[in-house]
């Protein structure tokens, strides 16, 4: 492995930029997610930075069970994050649809639409757990083991 590749691996682990996407969450997970970014938890120590545009991000943090309205937007935003990228599913909803399962307006779970690398279970999960999930996703990016989506997704 040459020097630049080694540097790049360290950089990917130390500089995970995240983009937050709500795909129909009840807002419980969103409140916990925003708490992570507050001075109390100080995620900047791990290099985590919330980005305004999905094109700048490395890790897509998704909350919510994926409503039918949100499914298309979800795939578009996933396609806009440039490679290499990872997805963190925050809460029980993206993993299993939780209490919204079998609802006619839900088209979940999340991994039906995009590949998910880390699941953070909980309803809602604690901020510590969310930060650990993001750190694991960063590690996955550094090791180059992130699940790659289809060509259609990446060409969006």
């Amino acid at each position: 492995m040459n020097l630049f590749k080694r540097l790049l691996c360290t950089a990917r682990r130390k500089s995970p930029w995240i983009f937050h996407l709500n795909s129909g969450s009840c807002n419980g997970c969103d409140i916990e997610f925003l708490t992570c970014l507050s001075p109390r938890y100080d995620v900047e120590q791990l290099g985590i930075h919330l980005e305004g545009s999905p094109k700048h991000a490395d890790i897509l943090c998704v909350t919510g069970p994926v409503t039918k309205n949100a499914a298309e937007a979800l795939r578009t935003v996933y396609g806009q994050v440039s490679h290499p990228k990872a997805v963190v599913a925050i809460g029980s909803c993206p993993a299993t649809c939780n209490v919204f399962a079998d609802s006619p307006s839900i088209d979940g779970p999340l991994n039906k639409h995009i590949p998910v690398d880390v699941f953070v279970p909980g309803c809602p999960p604690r901020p510590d757990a969310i930060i650990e999930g993001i750190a694991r996703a960063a590690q996955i990016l550094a090791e180059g083991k992130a699940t790659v989506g289809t060509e259609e997704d990446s060409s969006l």
Partner: protein
Amino acid sequence: MNLNHLLRELFLPGLLVALPVAWFILWIERKVTAMVQQRIGPPFMQPFWDFVKLLGKDVPSRPGLDGALTRLWPILSVGSMLGAISLLPVAPRTSGFAGDLILLIALLEMPSICLVLAGFTSRSLFGQIGSAREAVSSVCYSLVFMAALVTIAASQHTFCLPDLASGAITPMRCLGIIAIVICIPAKLHMNPFSMPNAEQEIYAGPLTEYAGAELALWELAHGLEWVAMTGLVASLVIPQTGSLGLDLLLFSGVALGLVVLLAGTAAATARITMDISVRFYARFGLLMAILALASGLLTRLKH
């Protein structure tokens, strides 16, 4: 230009010095913000890791002229900033030519123009809103910035940077330096003048569509802009002692103090609206312009 001169241009304060200094200033900016918010903040190497990581990311391919222009703007920004930094009279030296102040002003304006064009080239709605805001704010602060530099130049009777730097401190010069410092937050899109790249409000402003290495260049251009602006103020503020070591120490001290002051102000203030910003710079600009004109006329009458 002999080899010695070339080496000096490259190293002091050329590319090899400017890059680490730019990353260091970006780190100080984030660290000061963290300290104001009672956090620990990012590790020392964070801006460097961010840069390397962005270099390793895919860049979306855009065909034709759009793609070429999109790649051109960040390169032009970084290039012009490196040029501006190499013009700064960091240590007493004989280089510099008559009128290099005018070239410096032109080079310092380049990133702003490139940012406006980048937003419009991206054809993103958020990019265009950001570009429009940047264009308006650029017109406002540039008036004050140029009036301030003209005031300083008129009070010293020269447009040559090394002569300006070694000139005496006059009240007119102090006023000019204060005006330049007030322009820096708007020039660097920092709070309270962060309307053009208003994070989250208009996604990422003109840079919404940028990714990977192109975004890395924009981040670098921002860091280099910091170096150029703080360097300009520091070179105008410090008296030249004749000793290279002492000069460099004073220069670094003043530049660092300025970074801490501006980053602290940015962390402690909220984003203001466009009309308040325009009004602020219009009033201030008028005052500065009158002062510049008056000083110019007075010095002409005196001789």
